[in-house]
C-alpha cells in the first residue's frame, strides 16, 4: 500500500467517522462511533484525546443553567458566580490539574434541561453535573438522566421541598419548605387571618404552596395555580381581588410576578391586601417594571447569605469589581456549587462519579477543620487530609449537606420600602 492510497482512504474514513459521530450526537445516545473497519487503519480518523498527553490534567464537569426563559435572571447571576469560582479554583489547581466546565442551556424548561443533561452526561460523559435553577427541571434531569448512573448532580438554585425526596440530588440553597414556613409565620405575625395563594403550576410552586398551606394557621380563601410564560394573568388577579383575603401570597417567578403586579396596578387593587412572596419574585427587574410605590409593603422571604462573614465580603468585593454591582444569593450558591465540585475532585481517589459521590458531602460536613475558601480547603486536602478533615464553609453559608442532600441555610426577610428592598431580619433555615 503506498503513501498515496493510505492518505485517500484516510480522508474517507475521517469523513465517515465525523458523519457517524454527528448522527450519534443528533440521536442523543451514548455509544461510540461504529468502527468502519476498512483498509486505512494506519493513522486514521480517530481524534486523539488532546487533554491526556499534556502535562496537567483538565477535569471537565458539566453545568446546566437557565440562560434563557423565565429563569434567565437567575441563570445569568449563576454565570457570574461560576466565573469567579473557576478563577479562584484554577489559580490554586485541582488534583494537579485544571477545572473546566462544559455548559448547556436548559431554557428554563424540563425538556430543555433533560436534553442539555443528556448531552453532558451521555455524550461528554462528565462524572459530575451542576444543574439547575428550576426545581422541576432539576428533578426532571435527575429522574431521566442522572438516576441509575453514578453521576453526581448538584443543583445550584433549586429550592423546592420535593428535592429532599431525592437524596442523591444535592443542592446549595436551603429547601423551600423552610421558606414556606417562614412566609406563613410572617403572615401570622402580621395578623393576617385569611390568605389568597397564587402558585406557579410546576414542581416549585406546588410544593412550596403545599408547605405554606400546611404551615399557615389562617384560612386559605383562594388557592389556584397559574401557568408559566403566559402573556396575561389578569384573570388570576381579578379572581384574587374578588376574595376578601387579608394577604396575597405569590409563589411564582419574576416575569410572571412582574406581569401580575402590573395588572394588579392596572386593576387598582394593589392596596387591597398585604403582599407576600417567595424567593423568586424578588429582583431588581420586578421593581423596575412595577409602577413606583405599587409594591410598597410587600414582604419576600429569600434564602440568604451570611452578610457579615469575611469570605462573603471578599466575594462581594470581587463581584463588584468585575460586574459593577452587588451579587445576589444566587451567584453565591452557584459559586459554592462549583467550589464544592472542585473539592470533591481534589478529595476523591479518581475522577469518576462513584468516587466523587463518596466524598462530596464529607467536604462540607461540620466534622473536620473549617475552611472558608477554596484555597484553605484545598491545602488541607493536598497535605494528606481525608475528606472528613475538611468543613468547607462557603460564601453562601455553612452548606453542611445532610443525608438528603440539603444544606443548612439562612433565610432573610425583605420588605419593599419606598420602591426598594430593605432587609427586615433573618430567620434560621
Amino acid at each position, binding site marked *: 500500500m503506498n503513501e498515496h492510497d493510505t492518505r485517500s482512504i484516510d480522508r474517507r474514513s475521517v469523513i465517515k467517522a465525523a458523519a457517524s459521530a454527528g448522527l450519534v450526537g443528533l440521536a442523543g445516545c451514548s455509544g461510540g462511533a461504529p468502527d468502519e473497519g476498512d483498509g486505512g487503519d494506519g493513522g486514521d480518523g480517530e481524534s486523539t484525546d488532546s487533554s491526556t498527553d499534556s502535562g496537567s490534567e483538565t477535569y471537565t464537569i458539566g453545568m446546566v443553567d437557565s440562560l*434563557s426563559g423565565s429563569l434567565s435572571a437567575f441563570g445569568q447571576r449563576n454565570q457570574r458566580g461560576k466565573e469567579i469560582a473557576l478563577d479562584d479554583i484554577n489559580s490554586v489547581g485541582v488534583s494537579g490539574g485544571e477545572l473546566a466546565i462544559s455548559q448547556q442551556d436548559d431554557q428554563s424548561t424540563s425538556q430543555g434541561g433533560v436534553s442539555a443533561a443528556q448531552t453532558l452526561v451521555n455524550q461528554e460523559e462528565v462524572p459530575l453535573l451542576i444543574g439547575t435553577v428550576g426545581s422541576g427541571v432539576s428533578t426532571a434531569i435527575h429522574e431521566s438522566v442522572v438516576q441509575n448512573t453514578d453521576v453526581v448532580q448538584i443543583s445550584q438554585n433549586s429550592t423546592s421541598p420535593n428535592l429532599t425526596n431525592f437524596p442523591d440530588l444535592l443542592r446549595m440553597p436551603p429547601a423551600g419548605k423552610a421558606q414556606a414556613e417562614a412566609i406563613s409565620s410572617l403572615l401570622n405575625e402580621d395578623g393576617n387571618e385569611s390568605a389568597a395563594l397564587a402558585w406557579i403550576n410546576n414542581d416549585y410552586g406546588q410544593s412550596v404552596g403545599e408547605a405554606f398551606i400546611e404551615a399557615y394557621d389562617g384560612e386559605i380563601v383562594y388557592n389556584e395555580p397559574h401557568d408559566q410564560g403566559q402573556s396575561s394573568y389578569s384573570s388570576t388577579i381579578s379572581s384574587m381581588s374578588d376574595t376578601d383575603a387579608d394577604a396575597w401570597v405569590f409563589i411564582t417567578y419574576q416575569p410572571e410576578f412582574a406581569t401580575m403586579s402590573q395588572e394588579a396596578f*392596572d386593576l387598582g387593587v394593589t392596596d387591597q391586601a398585604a403582599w407576600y412572596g417567595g424567593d423568586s419574585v424578588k429582583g431588581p427587574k420586578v421593581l423596575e*417594571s412595577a409602577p413606583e410605590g405599587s409594591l410598597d409593603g410587600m414582604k419576600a422571604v429569600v434564602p440568604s447569605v451570611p452578610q457579615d462573614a469575611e469570605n462573603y465580603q471578599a466575594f462581594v468585593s470581587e463581584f463588584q469589581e468585575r460586574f459593577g454591582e452587588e451579587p445576589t444569593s444566587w451567584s453565591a450558591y452557584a459559586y459554592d456549587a462549583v467550589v464544592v465540585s472542585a473539592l470533591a475532585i481534589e478529595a476523591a481517589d479518581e475522577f469518576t462519579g462513584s468516587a466523587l459521590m463518596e466524598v462530596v458531602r464529607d467536604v462540607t460536613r461540620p466534622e473536620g477543620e473549617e475552611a472558608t475558601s477554596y484555597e484553605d480547603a484545598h491545602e488541607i486536602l493536598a497535605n494528606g487530609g481525608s475528606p472528613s478533615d475538611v468543613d468547607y464553609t462557603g460564601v453562601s453559608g455553612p452548606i453542611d449537606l445532610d443525608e438528603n442532600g440539603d444544606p443548612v441555610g439562612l433565610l432573610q426577610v425583605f420588605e419593599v420600602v419606598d420602591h426598594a428592598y430593605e432587609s427586615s431580619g433573618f430567620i434560621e433555615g
Partner: protein
Amino acid sequence: MAQILQYLANGLVFSSIIILGSIGLSLVYSIADFANFAHGDTMTLGAYGAFVAFGVFGGLGGTVLGLPIGFFLSLAVGMALAAVVAVLTHILVYKPLDTDSIGLLITSIGVAFVYRAVLQATFGTDFLQYDISRSGPIPVLLDTLDVAVTQRDVAIIVSAAVLVAGLHLLLQRTTLGRKMRATADNPDLARVSGIRTDRVILVMWVVGSALAAAGGVFLALYSQLDPRIGFNILLVVFAAVILGGIGSVYGAMLGGLLIGMLHELTPLLSDVGLPVSNAYAPAVAFVIMVAVLLVRPRGIAGDMT
C-alpha cells in the same frame, strides 16, 4: 356582574393583541400557503424594534390616549422593521426553497429560532419595559361600572381597531386589496389574469408582519418584553386562526376575539361551580376550539376570504 364586566374588559385587551397576531398568520397561510411558525418571533422582533426606537423617540412631547407620541412613532418603526425582515426572509429563504408546505413549515421553525437567537444575543434574556409609567385604572369607569380599565388598555384596543379597519379598507376598497384576495383565492387564476402575484406576496408579507409587529409591541406594552413573548403566544394565535377558519382574514379577527375572550373568561367556570383553574385557560380555549371545529370543520368563517 361587575366581575363579568371586568373579565370581558380584560378579554377585549387580550383579544386585540391576538387579533393583530392572527391576521398576519392567516394572510401568510392564505397567500404563501404554509403555517408560518416564525410569526410569533416576528411579533417579538417588532416589539424589540419599537423598544430601540422608543429609546430615540421616547422623549417627544405630547400624548395620545395616555401614551407619548414617541411611542406611536416607535410602533411604526417596529412594524417597518418586522416588514423588512420578513420580506428579506421571504426573498432569501422561503422563495428559493423548492419544497412543499411541510418543508416550509419546518423551515419557518428554524427561522423562528434564528430570530430569537439574534434577539437574545443582542438584548439578553432578561425582561425589559417600555419606559412609560402606568397610570392605574380610569377613575370614571371604576366609579360608574366598577370596572378597572387603564388608558393603556384603551390605547391598545383603539389602535388595534384602527389597524384592523385599515386592513379592511385595503382589502375591500383598493385594487391592491382585490389582487390580494384574488391571489389568496386562486393564485394560478390570478396570475393568468395578469396579476403580478410575486408582488402581491411581498405586499402580503409586509402587511402580515407589520400587523404582527404591532401585536408584539402591544403585548410588550401590556406586560413586558422578553425574547420569548411572541413564541409563547403563538399557539394561542394558531388556535384563533384555526377557529376562525384558516386562510380567512375576517375569520382570524373573529377567532382572535373569541379565543382572547375565552382565555380571560375561564375564572367564570369556577364561579359557576366547575373546578377549572386559571392555569388551564389555554386548555379550555382549545377544547372550545375543537368543539367548534366538530360543528364547522372549516372554522367559523372558513368560506369567506
